[in-house]
């Protein structure tokens, strides 16, 4: 299948601070790709590199085969870009901004924009600056849908949105992408919303790439085990090949692992951990994300 985006060995520093090293991923045509990570792990940095607003210290990104540092106007016309916080030209009105963008995109679909605007019950002459964050998100989404791009790059679409607007955003976006075989690159700090939305994911941690997989594989292979331990017992446990992460809260030990239950039990026994009542607990994508990246 054709790759719309290919990032190869991306490495970036801000000053001496390493953001990540050797980030590799591809986004297949028609797929929905999620870049997940806590704040400050480099999600927006990656989007800036993808859009050519930041030159990485090493590595390259290619969009539709072009180096992202030198995108041609034709390729830019194929990319819909949602800025973090749904930033748009807030000095324009609903009508003005549609008129403005329509001049730039040959496949412009006015009706896709106005269909969303009708739901907002706002005056067509209302300035974007006077709208709520939720309404602004719909303006930004409507503009992207009207542009009819082949690739949509959405930087933290969920910022500042309540549950209703987040749902509305993803419902619209998902239906549109599915019907039109569009490719989506999305980041969000609200992982639970993306559970049934994204297919492929990369999980970033501070200074490194934790995982590159599909949501399905991640949820199937990454497991959470809870067990009882004697309260106050001194347990010396460390992250290793079997135990990807763990938490101790009073008499409860939680272990996260990509290994099977049997392998985890064998490992714990080999480490002389005095556990009992080991249970495998089902996880949502958000649980798994926190399990992998930790709460801090």
């Amino acid at each position, binding site marked *: 299948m054709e790759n719309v985006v290919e990032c190869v060995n991306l490495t970036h520093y801000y000053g001496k601070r390493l953001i990540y090293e050797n980030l590799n991923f591809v986004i297949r045509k028609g797929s929905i790709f999620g870049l997940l990570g806590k704040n400050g792990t480099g999600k927006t940095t990656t989007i800036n590199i993808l859009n050519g*607003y930041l030159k990485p210290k090493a590595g390259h990104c290619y969009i539709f085969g072009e180096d992202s540092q030198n995108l041609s106007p034709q390729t830019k*016309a194929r990319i819909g870009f949602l800025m973090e916080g749904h930033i748009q030209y807030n000095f324009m009105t609903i009508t003005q901004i549609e*008129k403005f963008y329509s001049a730039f995109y040959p496949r412009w679909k006015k009706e896709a924009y106005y269909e969303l605007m009708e739901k907002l019950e706002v005056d067509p002459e209302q300035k974007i600056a006077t709208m709520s964050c939720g309404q602004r998100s719909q303006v930004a989404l409507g503009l992207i849908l009207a542009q009819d791009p082949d690739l949509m790059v959405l930087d933290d679409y969920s910022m500042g949105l309540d549950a209703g607007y987040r749902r509305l955003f993803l419902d619209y976006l998902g239906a549109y992408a599915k019907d039109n075989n569009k490719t989506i690159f999305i980041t969000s700090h609200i992982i639970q919303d993306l559970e049934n939305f994204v297919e492929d994911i990369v999980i970033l941690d501070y200074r490194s790439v934790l995982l590159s997989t599909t949501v399905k594989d991640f949820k199937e292979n990454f497991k959470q085990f809870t067990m009882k331990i004697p309260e106050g017992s001194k347990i010396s446990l460390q992250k290793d090949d079997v135990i990807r992460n763990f938490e101790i809260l009073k008499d409860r030990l939680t272990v996260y692992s990509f290994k099977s239950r049997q392998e985890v039990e064998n490992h714990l026994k080999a480490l002389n951990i005095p556990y009992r009542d080991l249970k495998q607990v089902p996880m949502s994508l958000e649980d798994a994300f926190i399990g992998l990246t930790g709460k801090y």
Partner: protein
Amino acid sequence: MIRALFFKEWLKIKWAFISMAGLILLILIKIGLNLSYYIRILEAKTYWYQVIIMGGIFFREFTYIPVLVGLVIGFSQFMPEINADRLKLTLHLPLKENAILLYMVLYGTAALLALFLGTYILLSLIVISFFPFEVVKAMWVTMAPWMLAGFVTYWVTSMTFVERIWLKRGLIIVLGVLFIQTLLNNYAFEIYKNSLIYFFILSLLWSIGILYTGYRFKKGVMK
């Protein structure tokens, strides 16, 4: 596409443009009333002597107005772009990035040109009704460096806004101010008559300065 880009620029500078036009108009009225007043009070020949023989500049109010106009138009045009990094949206438009930046500066420059040309025409009409054409010509030459300072102020402002690093911004402002202040002498008529062309050529260098800070913005240069 270019028309749409200009439409966006107009929306940003609309109120700044109108208020600056209003300010210029008020100053022109003041100058016209002053001329009429002095000629009546001092008698025409005494005032003529002051202006023509003594070289009294009666439109001194305009020394710093072009600088103010350049600053206000530059702020109104580039502040919304830099606020929340909106310039990223603009540079994402399907045009060459350098072309986008140059079109933006071209629009602002054209707005300044319209205001300054309007000033020249109206002031010329006022002056010609009191003085011979030679005084009008001297007024043109005297005001030209001030107008040039207005353009440079605008170019420096636009360049500064697009730069991300405060230290570099500071450097651009210092260099800009040093250049602009050399254009603002107003103690006699036509003092820049022989050097104006050189100042003009040097000033044009500032007009493309935005390509340098724009490149830095686009590449995310942080030093």
